[in-house]
């Protein structure tokens, strides 16, 4: 084996190991050492990782995968009569077309989007009998198929009461976080693309973070996933999520996240452009459905100014004049 293909195989082995659900902590320094050893190692690894994750590979595999299904699909009768031989390919072709139609079209037809505007909330019953309560300014896409149940929280927050089904897992994706359940009640709050809070009110769920180990949360458990790290939250005794009563319990939460919650209720857009203010850590219990009261509380407790404009409310560091 020449040097180049040896590097490619070593890089490929690292990619496979890095994509396992749990990356062995002991392997980390070895990986860094391998990467540091030669520029060509780094180049080949970067190329292979991009290739492994590429849309092109998914498409090529998709075609290879459907070819594999088609090759298995044609049923050949055990003792066919002479005449039926001609019809077999036709049946096989029809079966392939139908299979393809089921695989391709059914997911498109069975996707439903539910959304709410700011200040509104909505309760929906899904095709499988599960119930979902949407908070304000929330968008949820749901796909119920005979073999799986998927939901994706595009923005906002939702409370799920999932009907128990042993065979069909219910999965909720929120940015880089995913929650897997069989039957249970839980809340998912998408606070940013790489920031999601999950709270469990009944049963248990499994929380996964983009390619990392899964964490199991049980009744009363909560967790915050921030940039791929899972942080446990204090246990709750509540039977329903805070947002249903319009409250939000913040402990060391960036101001940007709190304002994101207030926006779900506010009629006027709230602007928070200063980056240091976005990250300002906030603690307390806020009545987020009452925009004015939250903003007054924040203004009083932290060093910020709130300016009420005709079309929007702006939050700035204190003493910064309007431009």
């Amino acid at each position, binding site marked *: 084996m020449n040097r180049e293909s040896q590097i490619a*195989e070593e890089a490929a082995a690292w990619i496979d190991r890095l994509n396992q659900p749990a990356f062995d902590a002991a392997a980390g320094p070895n990986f860094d050492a391998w990467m*540091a050893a030669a520029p060509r190692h780094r*180049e080949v690894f970067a*190329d292979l990782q991009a*290739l492994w994750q*590429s849309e092109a590979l998914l498409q*090529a595999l998709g075609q*290879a995968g459907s070819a594999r299904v088609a090759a298995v699909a044609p049923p050949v009768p055990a003792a066919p009569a002479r005449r039926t031989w001609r019809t077999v390919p036709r049946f096989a072709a029809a079966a392939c077309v139908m299979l393809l139609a089921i695989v391709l079209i059914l997911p498109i037809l069975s996707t439903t989007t539910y959304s709410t505007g700011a200040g509104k909330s909505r309760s929906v019953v899904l095709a499988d009998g599960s119930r979902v309560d949407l908070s304000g300014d929330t968008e949820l896409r749901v796909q119920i198929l005979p073999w799986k149940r998927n939901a994706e929280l595009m923005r906002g927050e939702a409370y799920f009461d999932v009907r128990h089904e042993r065979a069909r897992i219910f999965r909720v994706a929120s940015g880089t976080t995913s929650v897997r359940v069989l039957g249970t009640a839980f809340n998912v709050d998408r606070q940013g693309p790489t920031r999601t809070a999950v709270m469990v009110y009944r049963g248990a769920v499994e929380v996964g973070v983009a390619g990392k180990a899964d964490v199991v949360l049980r009744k009363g458990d909560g967790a915050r996933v921030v940039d791929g790290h899972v942080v446990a939250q204090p246990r709750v005794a509540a039977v329903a999520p805070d947002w249903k009563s319009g409250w939000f319990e913040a402990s060391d939460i960036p101001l940007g996240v709190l304002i994101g919650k207030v926006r779900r209720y506010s009629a006027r857009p709230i602007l928070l452009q200063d980056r240091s203010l976005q990250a300002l850590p906030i603690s307390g219990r806020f009545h987020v459905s009452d925009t004015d009261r939250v903003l007054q509380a924040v203004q009083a407790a932290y060093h910020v100014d709130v300016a009420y404009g005709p079309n929007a409310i702006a939050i700035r560091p204190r003493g910064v004049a309007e431009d």
Partner: protein
Amino acid sequence: MPATLHQIETRAGAPAEDWRAIAATLSRYVRSRTNRADVVEDVVQETLSRLVHQSRVQTLVSVYALGFRIAANLLVDHHRRDSRYVAEHEEEPASQAPLPDRVLAGRQEVAILQEALAAMPPLRRDVLVRRRLQGQSCAAIARDLGLSPKAVEKHITRGLADLHKAMPGDARAPGGGR
């Protein structure tokens, strides 16, 4: 604020040449995943600044592994934002399809990869489909196909190396790389 390379050198514990190598590796990766120059710059800068931050608050298990993961997540975010932008302006539901410029550049890649997949032993192709497309774990693949976990690993490794070999030009060895 994204960190500049200079700030990284003065602030982070690792030697400057290491950070330079990390930056070069991550940009090579991001460049092959998108052909929008502004996104490349954004993602690489943001990844580096988060890496520097993380390396100061804790000892990292692997700076490269974390770097690749952050960059991949940021790329997904960018892609989401782009498709939402398109959706709002055309008042149509956001599409899961790749951006038009990726479709054009990708078509040739898909053809090359398909050819390479077709040339593989069927079992190896099957293992790759299950692992990447269907997201099956190695253990599940080993069970379904009656292979040892080591054999599954070997198929993935060989398969990926085959695919890499099939890709043309700059994406592979500059000057042959023998």
